[in-house]
């Protein structure tokens, strides 16, 4: 069935439903639910998929990818970040992006706020710049929960 035919059928059905108030309300409720769930899945998909796509690209980077002496992205770091992704919601990821760092770690950086997290094999560090005042910590123990909490905090 073509899109035009489908449209015609839909309009025909709607005209039948429009005569019955009860059907009309039920249809409206169903369409509202459908639209909301569709919107949610698109947003979730976009942010999550963008992160995964970038991560996959970065995994292809070989030694010297920066035109100098950079190490490839560590496979343990990739596993760590995937654990973060699995435990995250889309709102956790909104506004964040990832970059590889020369020592094989993964830099999670906020696009608007001046803040970032450097994820290693066992540890991580983070910074936040608030009006020129830098705050941060090094040598923190990596757990997905710790990364997600830090993302929310900074």
């Amino acid at each position, binding site marked *: 069935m073509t899109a035009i035919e489908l449209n015609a059928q839909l309009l025909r059905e709607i005209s039948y439903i429009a005569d019955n108030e009860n059907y009309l309300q039920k249809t409206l409720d169903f369409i509202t639910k459908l639209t909301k769930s569709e919107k949610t899945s698109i947003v979730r998909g976009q942010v999550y998929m963008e992160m995964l796509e970038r991560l996959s690209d970065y995994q292809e980077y070989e030694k010297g990818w920066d035109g100098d002496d950079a190490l490839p992205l560590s496979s343990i770091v990739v596993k760590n970040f995937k654990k973060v992704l699995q435990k995250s919601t889309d709102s956790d990821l909104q506004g964040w992006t990832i970059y590889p760092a020369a020592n094989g770690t993964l830099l999670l950086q906020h696009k608007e706020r001046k803040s970032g997290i*450097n994820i290693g094999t066992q540890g991580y560090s983070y*910074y936040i710049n608030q009006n020129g005042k830098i705050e941060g910590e090094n040598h923190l123990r990596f757990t997905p929960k710790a990364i997600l909490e830090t993302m929310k905090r900074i």
Partner: protein
Amino acid sequence: MIVDSENVARAIFSPKMVVDGEIQPEAFRLRPTICEDYLSVMRMSLPSWLDDIKRIPQRKNRKLYGFAEMNVGEIRNIQLNDVAYDVKEIDTESAPSHAGIFITVKGKNLIGGMSIDMPEPDMEQDFLLLAIQRELVDIAQKGLYVI
């Protein structure tokens, strides 16, 4: 003396340094292997600047991809606690427009930067280096050109 109104160009030597139009923070890493104490740039007010960039030695994995245009005054005006940025001439015969972005932390020159021995953010100043790079990336992002 380089005045605030001048612009400088930071060469980008790998297409991987630009992802979806975003310049990577690594483009502003001081290399520890050569104890780098400044980030090389070319003064765009001098006619030779583009030729000077093209003359920088290239290797198999180091091919000129583009450059980021940055304003000197904007670099010097970065407000970061205990950190100061300056742009100074490094005039050489082979590259008359050569200059460097120098960074000091509490008055001491920042040299080398991140260790790349292991995949850990293991240096005492790791978070500070990230914040320092970020400031330069934000300026560079505004004038990114592919050659």
